[in-house]
């Protein structure tokens, strides 16, 4: 079932971020020469719709963080185009980029090191406003306190004077969220925001993110390696493997009926919520993730793929195919064309 040109109904105002064949290669230096490139992101085309939560799922090292950073210009793509709110980031100078970043916020994985340990909570949350010269100090004060109560750090006056080391991991991540939303962004990159936290508070933080998203009408790129949280938290799901997005689609559909063999393997690896099955053997995706500096030829997943087609998968790279229900998948199993 292939419907070409399905995406044409979208226009730029609908997409907050649009990536077109983005590649990010990091040079590997040995002594003074470049010995090769790590292909952290290797040809990704994806759109993020306004107001949705897109989960980016993949194993560690698959390039999720790099892709997330490239959406807001924190890393420069080696090739390809990044449109943020319809503007090509590569064409912006430093000043314009700074202005554009005001529309975006980032929540990093490690709440212990993503806040300057020498800053009070107040200073940390206020800094984006200071840098972007938003408001006078009174106005900024109000906004900081409002953001702190938005993230449920109550009373805000109490938390404002604390240093990060006086707070728990969950509280710090709330501070990081407050800092990310302080300048009223439209788009937030949440890079594994709950991975470093205790399991008991993960849900709380995700619920908080959802609440803030609804309150402010935010678009969130939720990066995770954990299919379980992606399932509860996202509208759409993008599965990343070795620098490529192998499958994108509405979360429910993808989870119910995964098309790509890698997605299928990932979903099978999710631990059962049913406690009776907890102790049973957990399946993991068999094999090793590829070396991003020297990826396999053809489809990068083919050495681990249970449905590997010899003479095809190891020679050619599959194209992204758009399926009827708004899904895309890059796999020869669905490519009936020549």
């Amino acid at each position, binding site marked *: 079932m292939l419907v070409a040109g399905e995406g044409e109904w979208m226009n730029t105002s609908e997409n907050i971020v649009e990536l077109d064949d983005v590649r990010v290669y990091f040079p590997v230096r040995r002594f003074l020469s470049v010995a090769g490139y790590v292909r952290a992101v290797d040809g990704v085309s994806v759109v993020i719709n306004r107001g949705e939560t897109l989960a980016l799922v993949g194993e560690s090292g698959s390039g999720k963080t790099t892709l997330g950073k490239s959406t807001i210009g924190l890393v420069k793509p080696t090739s390809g185009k990044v449109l943020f709110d319809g503007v090509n980031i590569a064409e912006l100078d430093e000043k314009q980029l700074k*202005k554009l970043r*005001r529309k975006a916020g980032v929540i*990093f994985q*490690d709440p212990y090191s993503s806040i*300057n*340990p*020498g800053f009070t909570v107040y200073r940390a949350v206020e800094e*984006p406003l200071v840098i972007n010269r938003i408001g006078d100090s009174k106005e900024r004060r109000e906004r900081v306190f409002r953001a702190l109560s938005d993230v449920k750090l109550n009373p805000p006056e109490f938390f404002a004077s604390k240093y990060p080391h006086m707070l728990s991991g969950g509280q710090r991540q709330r501070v990081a969220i407050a800092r990310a939303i302080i300048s009223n962004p439209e788009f937030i990159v949440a890079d594994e925001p709950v991975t470093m936290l205790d399991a008991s508070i993960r849900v709380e933080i995700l619920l908080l993110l959802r609440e803030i998203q609804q309150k402010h009408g935010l678009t969130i790129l939720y990066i995770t390696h954990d299919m379980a949280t992606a399932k509860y938290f996202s509208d759409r799901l993008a599965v990343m493997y070795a620098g490529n997005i192998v499958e994108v689609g509405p979360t429910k559909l993808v989870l119910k009926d995964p098309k790509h063999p890698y997605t299928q393997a990932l979903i099978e690896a999710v631990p059962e919520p049913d406690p009776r099955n907890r102790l049973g053997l957990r399946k993991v995706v068999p094999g090793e993730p590829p070396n991003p500096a020297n990826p396999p030829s053809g489809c990068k997943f083919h050495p681990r793929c249970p449905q590997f087609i010899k003479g095809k998968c190891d020679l050619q790279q599959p194209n992204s195919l758009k399926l009827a229900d708004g899904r895309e998948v890059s796999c020869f199993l669905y490519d009936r064309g020549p």
Partner: protein
Amino acid sequence: MMRLKPLLRYKSSLVGVGILCFLIILSVYTVATLPFEEAARLWRAGELTWLDNPRNALPAWVNFFSPTKLPETLILNTQKPGPDVIKVSVRAGENIKISRVEMNFRYGFDDFPSEINLFFTSTYRTSPPQLTISWTKPDGTQIPLRRMTIAREDRFYISSDTVLSTELNQLMENRLGRKPAYTVPTSTILFGPFDETLLNPESVKVVKGDYRLSVEGLLFEPEADFDVKLVVYGKVYGWAGTDHLRRDIGIALLWGTPIALLFGVSAAVSIALIQMTIGAVSAWFRGGVDTVMQRITEVFLVLPFLPVLIMVSTLYKVNIWVILLIVVFLSSFGPGVKNYRALFLQLRESPYIEAARSYGAGDLRIVVIHLIPRVLPTMIPSVVLSAADFVFLEAALAILGIGDPITPTWGKVIQDAFYFGALFKGHYYWVLIPSALLAATSISFALIGFALDKIFNPRLKEV
């Protein structure tokens, strides 16, 4: 500022802060009361300025700790007449005038004076005054010292005059009927008893009591006049004693304090700031800039520090601030650069730096607001500690002769002491007081530095 309060919690750092405060107060006092030009002039003035001081005198406070009291210097001057200094003039003819000077003083010390000198000034047109000088002991014995014609500026070194010494020894021989085994010093004869004990230099005692020096002057012009100054030099002076040139060592030690502190602190601070800047630039720009900086650092690391300094100071006349500049220059690419660079390289990868960039912070802001304040905690204690090193370095350079010839410093005093054999001659005070000041300074910096380290880098406490 708030983080410095715990300094007073540690006993050791309290001592350090105490010493440092004392040194700072001493510096402020010095700068406020004795202008530098004046101190430098006094220090280089030569013996004429210091003529009234004893040579190589001990500090005065040694008398507090010793049962025998060493003499202090007594000065009697007809220009400052008083009950002890009487000058009477009588006309003895049309052109002749007789002036009689009597100087009475009580000598109550347990040791003989180190020297006795007379200084004269006189006014006349053609005929100089003629003086007859005599000495009266407490028991009334009168000893004629000399009859002399004085020039406008003249002196009579009573204790070192060889003619007088021979006469007095002869006089003594006649009195006692025995010849002493050695030439008895004039000051011993003048201040000692006229008996057998005078022959034993070890046990001879001072006769305490009222002494008198009389000068009878014959003036041959109606307008002619003269003044006399008697200096009975003691063996103690001031709080730091005097050196071989009769200079008050206290002046050099006083001025040495602000200079040592300024030298140590400014060297430490500027070197740390320069090294930090180089490290930061190296780590921030990486690539070619980094490579060049690192190679320069390596060259500087193997550059022999002392020989370069010695070479520069032999070729050029350097003052202390030029030495400071050279020290700063030679250390600016020191090992600290590598440390700071490593620190910055580690810090620049911190997620909070990336976070700052994500909400639009520029390079300058990141370096100034986020990076440098993170480095300061590790920097401040080591700066304080190294200040002590530089205080010592300045002293060591001065002792090696690589010093400022003008500025009085602790190191200069120690150098003089060594050069003129202070330890060999037993003038321990000459070396010990400046050394104690040096030690106190570095101990105070060390104590404060260690405490700051505990405060700023609390993790070290557990190690």
